[in-house]
């Protein structure tokens, strides 16, 4: 059995973590612009401010560890290596999108990279993650299933059901509670009986703890340990990450509930700025290197946006594709399955 990654990654990986966090930030800022310009419809939930939680988590996992997420999941796909073109094209509802325009912002998936999707019902994906863990154990693979959900989802009954089954059956499962302190506009203190969420998992005999979700290396170390427990000791684990999203719940939320002072306090701990300081301080990257990396990331985002805008719309004739795995033969069996 191979060992988990060390808590402090080598310089090359440190730079890659920084680049991925920057890519997520720039990609989402661009997505916001595309939304404001009317090219992205529906809901657009941005994770700006949560980049350390996303990248710290994914950098601690193996590429084939199944990952599931909420609807705030552009970063998860980017961090797993999904082509930014295919993500932006999905946001713009194009045929070249990663889900061919069926899912949109909330429902990205890249099964080739073991990213099993973003889901729109709060808490609803957690049992799916448990099933991916179940399959890993059934087939006796070394995979660990990791699911990211918010502290709001932790209040859903089905999440407690999953804590119970994971604890009962010792599934190779990591629950990651990303506590960004607001369930849409409702702060934790008005929604939860306790400030902390990780003790809920502990109640089901799951090892659980809380770390600073704004510190990418702290997140990475915590997830490395959680994944090690699940992989090597065959015990589920739960990590609560305390973090903050800078934007409202979605682009349609004017974000008038949260105090400006509170936002500024968290932005002062911005994960990108603090990590850049660490890298500069340790000589892992210099100012020139940072500028070059940012320029490269901007080119990637520009290219993805141009690709998405130029991509064809989904043909109307394909409306009913993918409802079933095997398309039904209308002529032979009547019309009552799907009729575009």
């Amino acid at each position: 059995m191979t060992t988990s990654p060390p808590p402090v990654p080598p310089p090359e990986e440190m730079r890659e973590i920084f680049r991925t966090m920057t890519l997520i930030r720039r990609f989402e800022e661009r997505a916001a612009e595309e939304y404001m310009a009317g090219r992205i419809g529906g809901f657009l939930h941005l994770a700006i401010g949560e980049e350390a939680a996303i990248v710290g988590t994914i950098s601690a996992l193996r590429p084939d560890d199944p990952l599931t997420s909420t609807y705030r999941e552009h970063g998860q796909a980017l961090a797993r290596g999904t082509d930014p073109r295919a993500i932006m094209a999905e946001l713009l509802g194009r045929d070249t999108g990663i889900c061919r325009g069926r899912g949109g912002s909330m429902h990205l998936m890249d099964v080739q990279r073991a990213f099993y999707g973003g889901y729109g019902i709060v808490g609803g994906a957690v049992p799916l993650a448990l099933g991916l863990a179940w399959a890993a154990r059934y087939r006796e693979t070394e995979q660990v299933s990791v699911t990211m959900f918010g502290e709001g989802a932790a209040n859903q009954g089905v999440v407690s059901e999953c804590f119970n089954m994971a604890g009962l059956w010792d599934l190779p499962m990591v629950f990651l509670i990303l506590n960004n302190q607001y369930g849409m506009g409702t702060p934790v203190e008005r929604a939860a009986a306790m400030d902390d969420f990780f003790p809920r998992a502990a109640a089901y005999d799951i090892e659980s703890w809380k770390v600073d979700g704004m510190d990418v290396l702290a997140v990475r170390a915590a997830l490395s340990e959680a994944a090690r427990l699940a992989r090597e000791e065959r015990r589920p684990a739960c990590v609560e990450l305390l973090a903050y999203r800078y934007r409202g719940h979605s682009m349609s939320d004017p974000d008038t509930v949260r105090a400006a002072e509170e936002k500024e306090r968290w932005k002062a701990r911005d994960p990108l700025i603090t990590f850049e300081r660490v890298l500069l301080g340790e000589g892992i990257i210099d100012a020139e290197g940072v500028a070059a990396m940012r320029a490269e990331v901007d080119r990637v985002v520009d290219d993805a946006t141009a690709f998405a805008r130029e991509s064809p719309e989904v043909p109307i004739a394909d409306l009913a594709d993918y409802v079933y795995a095997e398309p039904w033969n209308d002529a032979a069996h009547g019309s009552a399955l799907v009729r575009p």
Partner: protein
Amino acid sequence: MSTEVKDVTYREAINQALREEMIRDESVFLMGEDIGHFEGAFKVTKGLLAEFGEKRVVDTPITEAGFTGLCIGAAMAGLRPVVEIMTVNFALVAMDQIVSNASKIHYMFGGQVDVPMVIRMPGGAGHQLSAQHSHSLDAMFTHVPGLKVCVPSTPEDAKGLLKTAIRDADPVIMLESEGLYGKKGPVGGEDHLIPFGQAVVRRPGRDCTIVATSRMVWVALAAAEQLAAQGVEAEVIDPRTYRPLDLDTLAESVRRTSRAVVVDEGWPECGIAANLAAHLYESCFDWLDAPVGRVNSADVPMPYAKNLEQAAIPQPADVVAAVMATLAREVPR
């Protein structure tokens, strides 16, 4: 004769299908409440834990949303779970997983993963179980694109449809009938699969088409017997699956008889009978000599008292009256 087939119960037929498919495919496993050591609330899974072990026959906590969702995730990873929800009534707790996840994952993610799973559950009324344990929710599942819905009426169909369902790449809802578990009949062998979307004529006739599934097939056949005594030859057709629906066979029959009655144990509003009647109006309007009749359970929560319950669920006499109405005849007293 060596080919003679021994009759088995509907319950045993389902057990055979599960067992044969578990032997055939290592990725098939069973999960549900009390299906292992207790061998199922209706004893459908009798002997399977002993034969296949705890890895493949899994007793769960009472946590329908959780284990249904778990099985959806396992199916996404390529396993073939067969979920037993103890009765259809408890599926309501798991409806978010079934409707928001199982039915949509293939579509919403552009076909990247299949969800090859079966969710079995018995339903129906008739045992004085009152309002919360007597549901027929066929219409709720059939409403949802992405699901397939089986409603077997015989042991042969229960076995053959379940085997097809387990091998299918999509999520299949298998609605069994509590009232049919003891019903005996012949069943097919290991290789006998019944394809989805193929209706079967249970009794031929020329005067009126009766469409029914599951236990209502037997109610319809009893009605047809009574009608025959009065010189009315009803044709009883069993669609066997609501999704996909073999509308062609239904329409062909109705165009011959020019009359139709749909029998459904569910409620009348926005129900299966209403839906099938709409299909028949659309496809057979010019052939119909009378409005399509509907026989449903009464539009009330199921009562406990035996006389009230029997009055609330479709009886052969209700079907006879509906057929006679399409013929503009009074039911003789």
